[in-house]
């Protein structure tokens, strides 16, 4: 890994014409999200020279977007008809009013109507969140006193009145067209869950850079659909920071597993486990890159290690639950394959000195998480206070 320099994150709208991006003092690189008629068609890491990224350089990088642009061009020809169901947006939070404020502001700019916004305050220690929500018009405050992110999600999902329930996190900012893009996917009756892309809001600290380097919330810019064969690999669908589900399917599948995700020993994995159960029920999941949110990665230097450890735990805890509760034997194969193809391969790359996005400590953190995952789930299920 090279020396860290902050990376500027900028949006460029193609139809407004390409101009030089200025004001990039202190940056050596810029992550340019190129959008065409609102749809992101390219995520370009471009060099900053003399404090700017020239229009010419952006133009020279256009070929990298050609394939993605094609898939958007084709879709332009037949826009799906859109009905206007009521959508409920659920934001689960816990004592992070300072971040939630910006999130609520971005939710206020959503172009979709009819809309209801629910903030689920999970076991708060202060009333800052309540005061903030009460001061924001059009946002409803719910209080969930059972700890755990998945409990909060289930609480919010249960209280939602909309036909579609969208979830995002308090540390994310949503795009004005976010809901519209998700609803467009759910027009297809076979699709029960729609997910989208999460770009980084900023890359200012090494921790934020490493989180992106480790994959972040990256699932590419091409739309994708997952079917029931993908149930053990549902992680490819996206993440809980950007998802919408039909309320009917949410109730039918029983919602999120309360023994998983934040607030339990398993730390994460609740969203992926839910996706895999949705797929197993014969529904599809659509990944739609034009539904985008911007996520504020954690800045503290020790955060990445913890986050990656948590991801390691969450993935294997999810597979443990799949095998234990749902008798999904595919989870055995996927966990072994993933361990060999991802964790061991990353470890070998680092040890052999090949170019690797992650340093050894983070690879080991994720691996430790992976080994701890199954026990974390069993512990969460049988020995926790729940």
């Amino acid at each position, binding site marked *: *890994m*090279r*020396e860290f320099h902050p990376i500027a994150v900028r949006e460029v709208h*193609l*139809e407004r*014409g*390409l101009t030089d991006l200025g004001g990039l003092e202190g940056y050596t*690189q810029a992550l340019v999200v190129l959008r*065409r008629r609102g749809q992101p*068609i390219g995520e370009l*890491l*471009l*060099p900053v*020279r003399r404090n700017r990224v*020239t*229009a*010419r*350089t*952006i*133009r*020279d*990088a*256009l*070929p*990298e*977007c*050609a*394939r993605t*642009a*094609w898939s958007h*061009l*084709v*879709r*332009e*020809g*037949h826009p799906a008809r859109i009905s206007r169901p009521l959508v409920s947006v659920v934001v689960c939070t816990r004592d992070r009013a300072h971040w939630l404020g910006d999130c609520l502001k971005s939710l206020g700019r959503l172009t979709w109507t009819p809309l209801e916004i629910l903030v689920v305050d999970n076991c708060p220690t202060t009333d800052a969140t309540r005061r903030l929500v009460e001061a924001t018009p059009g946002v409803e405050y719910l209080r969930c006193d059972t700890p755990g992110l998945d409990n909060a999600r289930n609480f919010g999902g249960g209280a939602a009145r909309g036909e579609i329930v969208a979830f995002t996190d308090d540390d994310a900012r949503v795009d004005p067209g976010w809901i519209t893009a998700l609803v467009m996917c759910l027009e*297809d*009756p*076979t699709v029960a869950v729609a997910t989208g892309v999460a770009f980084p809001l900023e890359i200012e600290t090494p921790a934020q850079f490493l989180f992106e380097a480790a994959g972040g919330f990256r699932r590419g810019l091409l739309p994708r659909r997952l*079917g*029931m*064969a*993908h*149930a053990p690999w549902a992680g490819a669908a996206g993440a809980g920071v950007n998802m919408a589900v039909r309320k009917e399917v949410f109730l039918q599948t029983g919602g999120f597993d309360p023994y998983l995700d934040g607030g339990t020993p398993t730390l994460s994995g609740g969203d992926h486990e839910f996706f895999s159960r949705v797929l*197993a*029920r*014969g529904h*599809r999941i659509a990944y739609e890159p034009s539904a985008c949110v911007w996520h504020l990665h954690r800045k503290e230097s020790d955060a990445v290690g913890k986050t990656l450890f948590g991801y390691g735990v969450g993935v294997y805890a999810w597979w443990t639950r799949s095998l234990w509760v*749902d*008798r*999904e*034997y*595919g989870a055995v*194969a996927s966990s072994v394959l993933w361990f060999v193809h991802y964790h061991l391969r990353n470890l070998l790359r680092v040890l*052999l*000195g*090949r*170019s690797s996005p992650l340093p050894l400590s983070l690879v080991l953190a994720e691996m430790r998480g992976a080994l701890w995952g199954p026990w974390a789930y069993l512990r969460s299920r049988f020995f926790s206070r729940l």
Partner: protein
Amino acid sequence: MSPGETLRTSVIVCTHNRRDSLRDLLHGLAAQDSPPGGMDVVVAADSCTDGTPGEVLEAMERFPHPLELVETWARNAAAARNAGARKAAGEVLLFLDDDMLPSPGLVREHAAAQRDAGVVIGYARPVPGADARLWQLHARIWWEDRFRDMARPHHRFSYQDLFSGNFSIKRELFLEAGGFDETLGRLEDYELGIRLVKRNALFTFRPGALTLHRESGSQQKWLQRQELEGGTFVRLEAMHPELRGRFHRVSPDGTLSGWLRHTGLRGGWGARALLDILGSLLSVFERMRLRGLWQMALGSAGEVLYWRGAGAALREEGRSPVVSDAAQTEGPSLREKPILEAEALPPGETFIREAAEKGYRITLSGVPVASADPEPGLTLCEPRHFLFPLSLAGYHPRGTLPFFANPADALPGLSLPVEIVVADLEKGEEGLPSLVWGPDMMLLARWERYPLGYVPLPGPMRCERRGLLERLLRVFQEPLRGIAALKLLEKEAGRGESGGVLLPDLVLIRRRQPGPGAEECAGELEHLGVERGKIRILERDGPRLELPAGAGGGAIILMEDGMMPEAGWLEALLEGLRNPDVDIVVSQAFPASILTGDQARLMRSRPWRRGPFPFLFEERERLLEAVPWLLHPSAPLLAAIRTGLPAPDRGSDAGHLSLLCSSLESGKLVRYEPRGTLPWRLPESDPGGRERLAEEYAALGRCLRPRSTSSPGEKTPALAGFAWRTAKEGVSRALALRSLRMLGMTLAELRALSGRGAGGNARRQG
């Protein structure tokens, strides 16, 4: 008929021993919101032994609309439906299956849509029960996809869209067409669809004409049906010879699917044993919830059964039970097809008529992005059908060719010597080389100099010139679509600063082997308009060259002997320098021929940059990843550098690379330009070449030394081992060891260094 008037509709329900679901269906029909006198119902009960007729007679008393019962004993749905239709009095016949649950507006929707269409297909929405098994879930997706396709505005209806479970047709049209065929026994709806398409009937889909479809099928029944359908399609082929070859997608021989086809067609114990195995696998996979494997097994079993049925029917007809993919490679010639520029939509009436007859091709910014053959089983074209049918035209079963990104991968199957010839597809048939009987060759397909890929053409294949262009356009459809999209993006982004034609200040031709190669290359350059005085030949061990210290406006081209410059090449290579942040443009030469086994081996060991698109290197690490394909004994120098940069040391590979690295470190960018590619004659033998190569790699190791500004955390051992790996993976271990020795290191030292991290590296620098 006045526009407000609704057509009288006769609902014809064909049923066979399903009393309970028929009762629900009749309840649904009784609750229709169509006006009194607007509908009547005929139940055609075929060979029912469960008291269905009694049930219908009982319902008659309370039924709000006229209800009639027809009993047949034919065990044949087509016959029962025809009998029902004969009894029906309405102007519109609405056919329903007995497992449908109609929505209250069903009849009204059909009657309304019938005003401007001949055939209306309703939405039979599948509802799997709570205890649905894997097969029901799978079937639901299949049905929903089918209806969703039909709901798209650009959908062109085919005979396969006629689904007898929920569709309506004008009585007159039905009778004119002759009703359902009673001899077929299965797929009578498809067969009726073929006849209706031939009569140019207008098809439409109405999502509002909704029935809920309780999937009554099962995996076992579906599999049995596959076998029956295989046989039926063979009979359909005999009835409609113009559709021969359109019914089934024949996958190529040599694939798993091709093998399943052959096994099925042969039938006998082989197919039986395979089906037994697949049957047990299906139940094991379902129990273990291995859905991906289950889907594969189900598809395979279906395929074997389908072809077993087809094989049996072929034998019955006295035809040979062999179906090969060879029959499908013939496509209509491209020259006859009308071309539609996508920006000129919608097309005119003459075009549409011609397109329905001959097929068509769609271009975007002049790049062909989709083509269609005439399809006898499809309804007539309409303007809306040209609004990007592109997403659906992604797969072409017919006329495929093998193609590769790396010329070395295309070598198996060809015998040496192999000539590599360029086919410039944008020039049409004139751009193709003349193909006469001769030794094997390989085609490099390009579009406006963007390299698309390599296609092996063994001697015998070269005679089939007809349709070659069409096939090339099809196999390279994906990169062509990328090029079309890129052109559109560039247009939308606005023109970059254009300026005049850039001309090189100097062209340096490095001599790699003795002979007139360098002089020939210089001669070609003169033809392209480069002044003789600007061309210098760099001798292998000649003195270091003094380069002109221009003001940064011009460029110096670095190339090697044996390259054959072409018109348009110089402009493509130099275009990248229009970006003032780019100082160097590199490209990749391809071999003009592969004559000897040595050359073939050399080519095989050379990694190849894939894809037709240029890109920017913005940092050293990314450039280092490219070293294996930029720096290799079979990768000659081909680059343009901005005048004013220091000259590369004697034009060696390592000197070249150090130039690239220092340029990147000084904040400039390097562009890879695939359009700058040129054919290059590989040296047949290179005495002392290995020794020099080892030197090159050693020099490479030296110039890859980490920057002096490296921070303690940097992973410098990765750089130290880079030359070693490049040499070992690119050429051979022995060569890598020799280059290490030249660096004054042993392998053990290198390993220790890699293990020790930054400290070890610092020692090495000292």
